[in-house]
């Protein structure tokens, strides 16, 4: 479903070019749960960002189904992120001034057209699924870290994404909450969602069906 070939990405720090990904090739299958592991600075987050189209590679090809993502316009990539791909981050990343319900509906608030009632209903269902139905009208600041992460997951569910990218989704959570989040991701995967998760926790990595080990920008 998602195929990366010979991906190279360099960053410039203090005028020096630092290679982060070196000719990386990886395939993610439909409905697969893949974890990307590696030490800090190994390039695992950059790989996930490239796969989720948040970062454009310097060279190499990225295909999603029949689409060559490297050749797609900015507009088309935005559309893809709006529909097929979802990203959740280590620090939850909700807009603090929107309620839980509004945060989960953000993908549908991109124009002056009001959000459809059906989408609102779906958002409530998704919040119910992640156990936050009773907190729909709260602001993120009033939620625990685990609850905030669950809102981010609900947001991915609301738009019926095909691939969920998760960057250290349990990184800032305590063990119990982390396990709850992992159980939720596992459930979603069982429902057919493809999951690409970056983690440095070996026990969480094992939950995924496949693990990609990356070191110094190279898959080993």
């Amino acid at each position, binding site marked *: 479903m998602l195929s990366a070939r010979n991906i190279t990405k360099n960053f410039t720090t203090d005028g020096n070019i630092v290679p982060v990904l070196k000719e990386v090739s990886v395939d993610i299958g439909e409905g697969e749960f893949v974890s990307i592991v590696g030490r800090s600075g190994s390039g695992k987050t950059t790989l996930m960002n490239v796969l989720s189209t*948040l970062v454009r590679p310097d060279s190499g090809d990225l295909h999603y189904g029949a689409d060559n993502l490297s050749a797609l316009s900015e507009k088309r990539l*935005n*559309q893809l992120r*709006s529909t097929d791909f979802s990203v959740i981050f280590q*620090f939850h*990343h*909700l807009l603090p001034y929107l309620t839980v319900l509004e945060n989960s509906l953000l993908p549908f*608030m*991109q124009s*002056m057209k009001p959000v459809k009632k059906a989408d609102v209903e779906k958002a409530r269902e998704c919040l119910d699924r992640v156990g936050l139905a009773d907190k729909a009208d709260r602001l993120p600041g009033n939620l625990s870290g685990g609850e905030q992460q669950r809102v981010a997951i609900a947001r991915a569910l609301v738009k019926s994404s095909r691939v969920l990218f998760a960057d250290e989704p349990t990184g800032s959570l305590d063990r119990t909450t982390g396990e709850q989040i992992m159980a939720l991701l596992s459930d979603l995967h069982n429902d057919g969602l493809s999951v690409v998760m970056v983690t440095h926790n070996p026990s969480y990595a094992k939950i995924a069906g496949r693990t990609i080990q990356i070191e110094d920008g190279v898959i080993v």
Partner: protein
Amino acid sequence: MNILTIPLRNIRRKPSKTLLMLLVFSLGVMSIVALYQVSQVVGLSLEKKLTAFGANIVVSPANEKLSVSYGGFHMGDMLFDVHDLPAAETVKAIRGIELQDRISAVAPKLVTMTKVKDTAVAVVGVSWQEERGIKSYWGVNGQFPQQQEQILVGSRAAEKLDINVGDSLEVLGDTFTVSGVLYETGGDDDTVLLMGLPTLQGLLGTPNSTSFIEVAALCAGCPIEDIVEQLQGALPGAEVTALQHVVNQRMASVHFVQKLALSISVVILITAAAMVGLSMLSAVNERKKDIGILRSLGYGKSQIFTIFSLEAGFIGALAGLIGYLSGFGASFKVLELLAMAEGAVPVFSLGHLLIAVTAFALVTVIAAVYPAWKGAGVDPSTALVAL
């Protein structure tokens, strides 16, 4: 819920910052609105005061002018078929035009020539109240006529006829007392005898007739040409002439006040807009994380631009509303302090309010264009560094 929800909720998140920005811009708008209202009222009252220094339109009977010479002898310009105007009807027609609120004074006059003490002199019949309204610069040795048998004499005429205040004078077969002598004006009034219009009409046996009418019109709200056109329409048998030099001189003073207010307003507006722009620029830097989240959810550059523009536009519209209302209120106080309103008051207009709200919303949006464009240009990967 739609894209507008995002800026509106963000505005609510930081009430003190929002209020401060709103306060700054509202103060700017208030100053501009107050200045505008004050300049309009002061301009109008200034023009009203200036009408006391003479008329700017003359209504005279239509005539045909002939330059006559015969056998080498030049007889000068001769007016053919000249009839006096009917005073009451003409004044009524002038006062009845569509722009009647722009008519400040209507001063009819009847002019004739006669001999007094064997000296040829012009006698002018005037409506005292209207005449003094457009000639506030008149100064009198003695007093203005209070009775029908009293007359006012121009300074040069008094000198020529060797008459003083209190003297009796026979004019057109009737005896009049000189109630006062005009101080020298440097104008036509120096050489004539002035009496009440009905008195002269009675002496000449031409009741209700007038030779010409001087009109003082206020031109701040509309061009003099419009008033002249309407007068011509109302008085087909008369000739209406605008004294352009008087109009231009008067409007130069009024326009100076308005231009001064406009210049100050522009400076205030630029300052307020710059502050909104700076505030939005810092907001963009503070909210890179938000931009990153939105970009990861598929929001494009145009939508990020829209969010920041809407936020600025909302503040501008609100500041426009608050500023207009407070500026309107403040203008009363300013006029009271300046004591220049001369009875005129600022006029509230819903249309002006809507224009102000729209215009100031637009100004803030324009001020936010660069910050919004900068925010929209933030690459998702750069924004992600902030995450």
